[in-house]
Each structure stands twice: as C-alpha cells, then as structure tokens.
C-alpha cells in the first residue's frame, strides 16, 4: 500500500475533520476534568460516531463491522487526536475490542463484537499492575474453584473503565509475575461482587480507573479463548494499539505544531513578529522534520498491520517511540514558544502537552519501546 491516502480515505478524513470541528471543542476538556463522577465521555457524541460507522471500522462484516483496515482507523483517530476528543475509542474498540476479535472464540465474538461495533457495548482492558507499561508484570491470580475461577488482584490505569460494561482482565493461571507464560484473559462484568472501581481523572481530562478484585467469581466460559493464551493475544493487541494510539497522537502533534507556527506568525515582540527570530525558525524547522517523520512511520506502521507484514511488531515499537518523543517535543516547544500565555490554563496549547504526557506513558514510552525493539531485533 502506498504511503498516501486513497480517495476514500481522504473522504473519511474530511468527514471526520468536519465532525470534530462541528461537534467538539477543547473547552469541553475544562469541564470534563472537574467531573468527579459519571462517565468520562459524552454519550451523545459516542452515539453519533457509532452511527457514522467509525466504531466498526476494524471489525469483520460478519460481526457487524465495516471490514476496513488500520489505515482507515488511523485516519479517523488522527482527526480525533487533532481535536483532543475524549471518547472510548482506544479502550473499547482498539484495546478490548481487538482482544476479543483476536483472542475470543467464535461464540464470544458473535456475542460481543456487534455491540462493540455499534457502540452500544463498551469494553475496557484491565492489564496494568506495575508503575509503567510492562505486559507480563501481572500478579493478579485466577484460582480454580470447582468449575469457576476466583480472581484477586489490583489493576491500575484501566482507560475508560468507569463506563465499561465488561472488562477484559488479564490474570495468572500459571507462572509468576514477569513470566510470559501462564497468562489468561477473562471477561468480567464491571458490576460483579468483589470488584471495586476507583475513578481517576487524568491530566488530559480522560478517565481511568483502578480496580480491586477480591475473590471475584467468574464462570469458566468467561475465559477469553483458551486458558494460557493471554500473552499471545496481548502481544498482538499491544502492537496494534500502539500504532492506533500513535495515529491519534499524530493528530495532536500536527495540530499543536500548526497552532504554534501560526502563533509565531501573529505574535509581536520587540516590534516584529516572533517568527522572524532565527533561533525560533530553526527550532520550528527541526520540529517540522520530526512531525513529518512521525507521520511517515505512523502511516507505514498502520499499513504493516493491514498487510500483516512480518516486521509489524518492530515497526509498532519504532512508531510508538517516535510518536511519544515527537508529541513530547510538541508539548515542550509548543508551550515554550507560546511564552507566558503557554502556561496559562486559558491557552489551549497546554492541553496538547497534557494529552502528550498521558499518551506517552500509555502502552509504553520511548524508553520501553527502544528496549522492546532491541529485543525483537535480537540485540
């Protein structure tokens, strides 16, 4: 696949861009962050996005999806990221949705995915336990009790977990913390006895919950696919999700860059536009290069998923590492070039920096992915 948008993809992009411009503005982030309870997103907005079919993009038509690819998903995510839209896209569609699509048996897929595709069912993936992304550092235990499993442990940073109906929970049926083997995914309703959610509003006004599982009883048919296959599913889910998240980040990267360049053209200092200062010009030029390189690797990594290229996982790591570093640069330079205004809550640019930080640490920052890239490459 060529690294340009097809005509269809351009139409999709224009439609998404128009939707975001009409239906969303950054001021909503100021409201969302002060809500101490309830769903962390706008249900009406989500319904509209579902009606446009976006929530079904990556799923097969037999499950109610559009049967499109990550190239298309990336187009939509980029526009959502450009507007800093808050919606359970990454959590329900990409993370938990992919886990079901990749790891579930046919019955599970048939029962769950249509609701995911039409946006009526929200899923969330509960895997993280350590301070930083570390997929095998899972201690949560799943103990057989008769025909049932009892789950006990603690999960953190479950994105959009407060609005999810059903959680995909990674737990151990064997091995010990840090082992790749012995991981199993479970489908757990969010209102079962023994399960406690604690709600956090993140820096970027999104919601995530921490979860306590205290001998939560689930039936054996709530194992997603087969016991012990958790790591295989998670590896693939994370490789895809890292790229999808990067696409969303790309939108914010581009927008914060564009806004700052505009500011350089408008803001007067010492009687001239600050964009005339070579010190800032050169930094803007280098920043431009980083944005372009990020766009390229995101487009390539999205297509690598659709083409099932062998290098997929390494590209995903290169992609997320670059997106993390570039978005971080956007936060730093965006604020610095906006000067005093940049650190006020009144200016929008700070929200890009905050989204950058959350996105950076989600699913592994550049340090994590450089390490992973090296491991995958065998050095």
């Amino acid at each position, binding site marked *: 696949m060529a690294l340009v948008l097809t005509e269809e993809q351009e139409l999709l992009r224009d439609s998404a861009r128009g939707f975001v411009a009409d239906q969303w503005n950054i001021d909503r982030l100021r409201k969302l962050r002060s809500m101490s309870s309830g769903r962390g997103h706008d249900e009406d907005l989500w319904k509209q996005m579902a009606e446009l079919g976006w929530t079904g993009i990556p799923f097969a038509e037999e499950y109610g999806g559009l049967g499109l690819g990550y190239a298309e998903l990336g187009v939509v995510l980029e526009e959502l990221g450009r507007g800093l839209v808050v919606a359970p896209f990454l959590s329900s569609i990409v993370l938990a949705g992919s886990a079901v699509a990749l790891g579930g048996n046919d019955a599970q897929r048939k029962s769950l995915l249509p609701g995911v595709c039409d946006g009526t069912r929200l899923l969330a993936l509960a895997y993280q336990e350590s301070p930083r992304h570390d997929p095998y550092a899972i201690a949560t235990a799943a103990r057989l009790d008769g025909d049932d499993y009892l789950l006990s442990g603690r999960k953190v940073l479950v994105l959009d977990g407060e609005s999810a109906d059903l959680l995909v929970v990674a737990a151990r049926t064997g091995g010990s913390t840090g082992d790749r083997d012995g991981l199993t995914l479970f489908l757990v309703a969010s209102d079962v006895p023994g399960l406690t959610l604690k709600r956090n509003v993140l*820096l970027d006004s999104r919601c995530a919950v921490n979860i306590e599982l205290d001998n939560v009883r689930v039936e054996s048919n709530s194992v997603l696919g087969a016991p012990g296959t958790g790591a295989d599913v998670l590896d693939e889910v994370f490789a895809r999700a890292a790229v999808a998240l990067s696409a969303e980040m790309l939108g914010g990267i581009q927008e914060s860059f564009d806004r700052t360049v505009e500011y350089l053209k408008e803001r007067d200092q010492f009687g001239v536009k600050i964009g005339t200062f070579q010190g800032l010009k050169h930094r803007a030029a280098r920043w431009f290069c980083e944005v372009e390189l990020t766009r390229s690797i995101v487009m390539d990594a999205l297509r690598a998923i659709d083409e099932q290229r062998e290098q997929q996982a390494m590209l995903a790591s290169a992609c997320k590492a670059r997106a993390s570093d570039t978005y971080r640069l956007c936060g730093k330079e965006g604020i610095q070039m906006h000067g005093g205004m940049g650190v006020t809550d009144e200016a929008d640019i700070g929200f890009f920096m905050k989204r950058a930080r959350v996105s950076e640490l989600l699913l592994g920052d550049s340090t994590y992915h450089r390490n992973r890239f090296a491991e995958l490459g065998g050095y």
Partner: protein
Amino acid sequence: MSDIETFRSEARDWLEANCPAGARGPDSVLPDVVWGGRRQTFAHDDVKIWLERLIERGWTVPRWPTQYGGAGLTEEQDKVLREEMRAIGTRSPLFSFGMAMLAPVLMEYATEEQKLEHLPKIARGEIRWCQGYSEPGAGSDLAGLQCRAVREGDHYTINGQKIWTSDADVSDWIFALVRTDTEVPKHDGISFVLVDMETEGVSVSPIELISGASPFCETFFDNVRVPIGNRVGEENKGWTIAKRLLQYERSMLAESTGVGSGASTRRQSLLEVARESLATPEGQLPDAGLRDELVQYEMDRLCYGATYQRSTDAAKAGQGMGPESSMFKLYLSEMNQRGSDLRQRLVGHVSLVWDGEDVPAEEREMTRGWLYGKAGTILGGTSEIQMNIIAKRVLGLPD
C-alpha cells in the same frame, strides 16, 4: 577574645534566651516562608514571638543600617549570626520580595525620605510588596511596556495592565514600571513607581495555570492616582532601576533554587523514587534507558553544583561572574524540568492523575509541581532571553 568572638558569644546567648522552642530544632514549626504584610497570620504563637523579637533586634535584615530597621552588622558578623542560628536549627522567619528585590534598589536610588518611609516596614514585615513589570502584550520585550502614567499636577494617573504579578492578591504595595513618555525610544520613557494597592482603581485577578490555581495575578490600573513622590529616581530614567532590580531577582532565584539543602533532599528522593518504583530486589534499575537518563541527570547536577560553587568562590575572590547569571537561570530551569519530568516517568501511572480517589494527595501535588515547572523556562526571563544575554554580554556577539 577578639571582637568577632565576643559577638559570637553574645549572639549565642541572645538566641538561646530568645528563640522560642517552636522556632528551633527538630520541633520547629516555622513555615517555609513568612512573607509578612497586612494579611499575615500565624499558625503558631512561637512563630509570631520569634518574628517580633528578631524585628526588635534588627535581625530580620541584620546588615541593614539601624535607621532602616536593620542591625548594621558587618559581613563577618552576619556570617557568624547565621552560623549560630543554624546551630540551634532556626532562621529568620521573614522573607519577602521587598527584602530581596525592592530594598536593594531603594538603598541605591531612593531619596532619604522614601527609604525612611518604606525600608523599616519591609524590615518589620508590615508591608508585603509585589512586582508590576510584565504586560500581556510585551512578554519578553519588557521595555515595550504600555502601562501609561500621565502627570497631572502633583500626581500621576495610571492606566494599564500588568501580568505575572506574583501574590498581588495578598500584597499591600506594588513597585511598577510605567510609561511616562511615549515620544522617545522605548527604554527612555519608563519610570519606576510605588503604588499602594488600596488606592482606588487598582484591581487584581488571579491567573489559573496549566497546573491549576497559581500565585500569579493580573493587576489592572484604572485611573489610579499616585503621588509624584512615589516615583523612585528621575522621571523617564526608570529602566536603569528596573534592570538593576532584575539582577537582584536573578540572584534570588539562583539562590532559592540552588544546590542548597532543598535540592539535595530532592536528589536523594529521585534515586529513591527510581528504586522504589522500578528496581529489582538487588537495587538495580532494569530499564537501561531510564537508568542512563537518571545517571545523566545526577552527573549534570554535580556539574551544576560545581559551577555554582565556582561562582561563589570566584565572587569571594573578587572575580564576579556578572552576566553569567543568565547561564544559571537557563541551565537550572531546564535541568529542574528534566529532573521533574524524569521523576514523573519513573513513578509512571500515578503521575498521570489530575484528580482522583485512589492517588495520594502528595502525588497529585508532585504532578502539579511538574506542570508548574514548565513556567521555569519562561517566567523571570525566558530561556531565549537568557541566551540572547549570554550571546551579547558574555560572548560579545554582534547585534
């Protein structure tokens, strides 16, 4: 016994007799800073008592002349006094922008009448001052300020707006730069005036930052009448005073964020943070990239600390570093940002929480602090301005 030893002995005795229990040693309840001013309150009687006793002796500002509220100590005596205070684990409970920034320029540029009017109130912590320099339109181009003071008989009428006036909402007076001539080059039409914030037409509005509520404010002047006698120095010559005050400000910033006890506490905690959060049972950090960044940060701190030490030693040897102070502002603010940023990444997910039920308050404060630190390379002269100063004043590169 030499004079200085006599002084030491007397100081020790006085401190022993007068420093209340709550203001010394491990039981000290002294807050980080008592800023003074009309709205000052005291959480503990001992803090108030200690302040009053020091004021009485002129030891809130020991080196100031006695007529201005000081004790007229020599540099050597001052050093001894500080040593003795450290020995019992106390310090002066009073610190303010008035003491650190305004007073030195008043000493240099004000009339005797002005000095007698303002300095004792600063020494006694009666009046709290804030700084009216920056303006929304001017930014780094400080001298491009627009706040206008029109002379009308025995007073100026001031109209305009200041921004980044720290603590304006809890201060009593403001020292401000105003434009008194619009027909001349921008540096030549500025005056330095002192304004009582209770004057009609002064209003203050706090600024919310990316980190939430902040000490910064916008301060508005709407037909504010200020007596001519409140001007320091000549009319239209205020820029000289303004620049001098900025030097004092940079020194204050460098000292307050320098490699003192605070910073070394923090150092400790950054490595501990890493260990607690990520280390293997043997204390090794498994993430090679983060370990490398941590080492680089630690090394940079050593280099910065040695540079700060060298500058202090050079000053003692009479070889001042001068405009190199811009180097400290530039490097330190960025190094602090890096350190703070690294800490956040080391602790991982809890650092992402803006508000929530499952994250300790001190973690949320750290996150707010990290965000607030983004201002470090902007306020008080942006990094770009510091680089300009270094290029021009230190390296002598042409304009």
